[in-house]
């Protein structure tokens, strides 16, 4: 009886404690207005034009100055499908005309920072620049819109996208965080104006930039999402060295770095700051891979390429490398967990993903022997000169290959020369490679694995018409089940049967930040959810 009473009292106390805590936390979750968010950025923007660039170094400091037509839901950015309107009205429209027409209604209260109204004409001019850039104007993601036939504005508040064929890839592609809405009148005068100037309609107004030091933005009082942003402004501090960025957060000179830190930095910050640090983690929509040069012997032989992938213990690598590098999840060529991606069980049927590494390596040795590859030679392994995760994974890979008797000499180059070798000279036997994407959109993301004459970012120089045919069929389908089947075919062809190029592990995004930073939620890409309009400081 006593025991029951004690239990009841304990339960009641626990309930009260939980209630207080819940009430407290609910109170703490009420956004506060004001304050300046200081964050560190590992690099500086190469230009201010989001349509031409593809780097987080632009998105993080400049993204908050711009609006998008649609965007990933900032309150639910980890969702792979939750896309909401930014300058359009209501929900993202459903397609009509056999899923080939999308009609967007544009809000009437959106203003550029110059005070001029944003209309459907501005949206159309923006997307025409992105999809069909004039000669001499670079558009980094134009290939993502191959399904678009036309984009028009029948009036100042309506935008109509007409597609050549129905495609599930269209809406995620449209939500690219780089598709900043520019002003038509400015573009009409000078298509390059936005490369050196900023005039957006986003939650913050550009104030100043001190090259090599920082960039500052102030609250836009006329922002179209009423009541937002909460912050008075932000200061993006440029700091290339990781140790400096970690120390900046530790010393509270900055509250967050949005790209992501390696595990050691997270552990140091947590150890030093305890509850003052909150850590958000997510599978990253970036995969590290290696690509053999199909034009060089012995890597022109599918048996040698299969041996390379069979030698790699991805399941073991995930366990060990995740402790020292920002990689973790075992997956194929598409974002793990997406409806179109293979399950772990399906992946385990693919060479190189077999759970029994001894069996894999025995097969690798057999294939190498059968191929007659010269194993006395040291082959050239091109490595991008960036520690996380390239150099670390590369060192691990060399050891993996050594275990089946094939030796590689690492040749590390800074990013510029490295890309030059991949794109121009092609003097490598095998190279590290990566695929870093924005909105999770496997239908577009796998274009990297198409034949060399169709993909400008495929560096293995292979032509695989089977993969091309499967892709062309898949992109025209809208039935997810059928698409998934074809995606599995492409995965098997790429990684196993034709052994073209090999994913290793998917990156793991770790963002430790000061606990007073509220409202910001991690997404699978360091390019997404960077408007900062729902971020507030609990100070």
């Amino acid at each position, binding site marked *: 009886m006593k025991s029951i009473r004690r239990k009841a009292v304990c339960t009641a106390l626990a309930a009260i404690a939980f209630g207080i805590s819940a009430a407290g936390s609910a109170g703490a979750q009420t956004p506060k207005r004001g304050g300046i968010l200081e964050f560190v950025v590992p690099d500086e923007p190469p230009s201010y034009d989001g349509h031409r660039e593809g780097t987080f170094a632009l998105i993080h400091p400049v993204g908050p100055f711009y609006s998008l037509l649609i965007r990933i839901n900032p309150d639910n950015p980890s969702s792979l499908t939750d896309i909401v309107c930014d300058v359009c009205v209501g929900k993202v429209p459903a397609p009509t005309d056999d899923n080939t027409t999308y009609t967007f209604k544009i809000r009437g209260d959106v203003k550029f920072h110059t005070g001029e109204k944003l209309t459907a004409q501005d949206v159309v001019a923006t997307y025409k620049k992105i999809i069909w850039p004039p000669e001499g104007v670079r558009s980094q993601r134009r290939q993502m819109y191959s399904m678009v036939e036309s984009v028009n504005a029948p009036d100042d508040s309506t935008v109509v996208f007409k597609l050549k064929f129905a495609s599930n890839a269209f809406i995620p592609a449209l939500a690219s965080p780089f598709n900043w809405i520019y002003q038509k009148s400015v573009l009409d005068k000078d298509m390059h104006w936005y490369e050196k100037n900023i005039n957006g309609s986003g939650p913050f107004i550009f104030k100043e930039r001190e090259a090599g030091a920082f960039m500052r933005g102030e609250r836009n009082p006329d922002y179209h999402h009423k009541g937002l942003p909460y912050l008075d402004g932000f200061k993006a501090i440029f700091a290339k060295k*990781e140790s400096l960025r970690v120390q900046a957060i530790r010393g509270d000179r900055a509250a967050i770095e949005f790209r992501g830190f390696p595990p050691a*930095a997270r552990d140091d910050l947590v150890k030093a700051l305890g509850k003052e640090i909150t850590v958000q983690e997510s599978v990253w929509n970036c995969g590290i891979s290696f690509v053999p040069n199909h034009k060089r012997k012995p890597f022109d032989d599918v048996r040698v390429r299969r041996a390379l992938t069979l030698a790699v213990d991805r399941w073991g690598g995930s*366990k060990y490398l995740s402790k020292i590098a920002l990689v973790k999840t075992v997956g194929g060529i598409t974002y793990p967990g997406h409806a179109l991606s293979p399950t772990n069980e399906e992946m385990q049927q693919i060479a190189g993903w077999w759970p029994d590494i001894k069996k894999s390596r025995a097969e690798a040795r057999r294939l190498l022997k059968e191929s007659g590859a010269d194993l006395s030679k040291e082959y050239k392994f091109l490595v991008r000169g960036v*520690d996380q995760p390239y150099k670390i994974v590369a060192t691990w890979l060399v*050891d993996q290959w050594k275990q089946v008797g094939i030796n590689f000499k690492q040749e590390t180059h*800074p990013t510029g020369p490295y890309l030059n070798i991949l794109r121009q000279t092609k003097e490598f036997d095998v190279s590290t490679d990566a695929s870093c994407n924005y909105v999770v959109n496997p239908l577009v993301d796998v274009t990297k694995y198409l034949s060399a004459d169709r993909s400008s970012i495929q560096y293995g120089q292979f032509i695989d018409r089977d993969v091309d045919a499967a892709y062309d069929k898949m992109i025209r389908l809208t039935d997810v089940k059928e698409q998934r089947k074809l995606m599995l075919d492409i995965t098997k062809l790429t990684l196993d049967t034709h052994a073209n190029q090999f994913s290793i592990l998917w990156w793991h995004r770790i963002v430790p930040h000061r606990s007073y930073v509220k409202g910001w939620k991690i997404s699978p890409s360091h390019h997404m959810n960077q408007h900062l309009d729902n971020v507030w400081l609990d100070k």
Partner: protein
Amino acid sequence: MTGEAIAVRLPRADIEAELAAARRPFFKALGTWVRNQPLGTVSLLGIIFLIFMAIFAPQLSPFDPVVPHYDEMLAAPNAEYWLGTDQYGRDILSRIIWGARTALYIGFTCAILGSTLGLVLGVASAYIGGWFDLVIQRMIDVFLAFPLIILALVAVAVFGTGTDKVIIAIALPFVPECARVVRAGALALRELPYVDAARALGFSNLRIILRHIVPNCMATYLIMLTSFLGQAILTEASLSYLGLGVQEPNAAWGLMLQGGAEEYAESAMWIAVFPGLAITLAVFAFNLFGDALRDTLDPKLRAR
């Protein structure tokens, strides 16, 4: 007339001391040197230890320096891994021992290559003189205007990364430095009576250079060589630290620092401390030994 002038500059006592030193048995001379140069002696012992470590690396190192032990990643120094392990679980002690081989191989190769080419260029420039000397010296002026690491970085950018290319990158900047110092000595030697006498006797220029000038430049050459050894080790470590020198998974001290110094400075400080210590001690040893050698070989310093 010239002979008298020399007699004034070199007192008889000095000449006798020179001759006595030359006649002294090796071990006695060594004993005198040890007494006179205690720091030099310690540094010499350090260098001998380094050389021993480099030669017998396979026998001395407890583990293969490139083989990772993933279950022992970032292990603190313990009974099995005396200096701990790095982020790949590789034994740091073994990597330091093998790193000595890399450091000494690159150090000696660069120092010998740089100072020998410098000797040839300096002597040739001094002896030939005229427009040749003028052109060479202006080129040397240009090279000397840049710090060693900058020149090495430029050379790496031109030749690429990897051990062999790093050797060229480091040795190249040594050449003008040595050539300038050697030329100064060779210019004085060129005017001495015995060189005039050799010329009068009709000896060829090559013979005069090889038999009468180069041997008298050897003291300068050796001093430059030892000073280059430390510099070469440090520059190799710097290049490797910048990711432009020796490449993973090879064991090299600078590379060991590059891999984990910053990231694990707090959680696994042994990754940075021990290779850093190895670099410091090696460079210190070579520099001290170079100083001691200079004190021994330079007659002016010896007289003091």
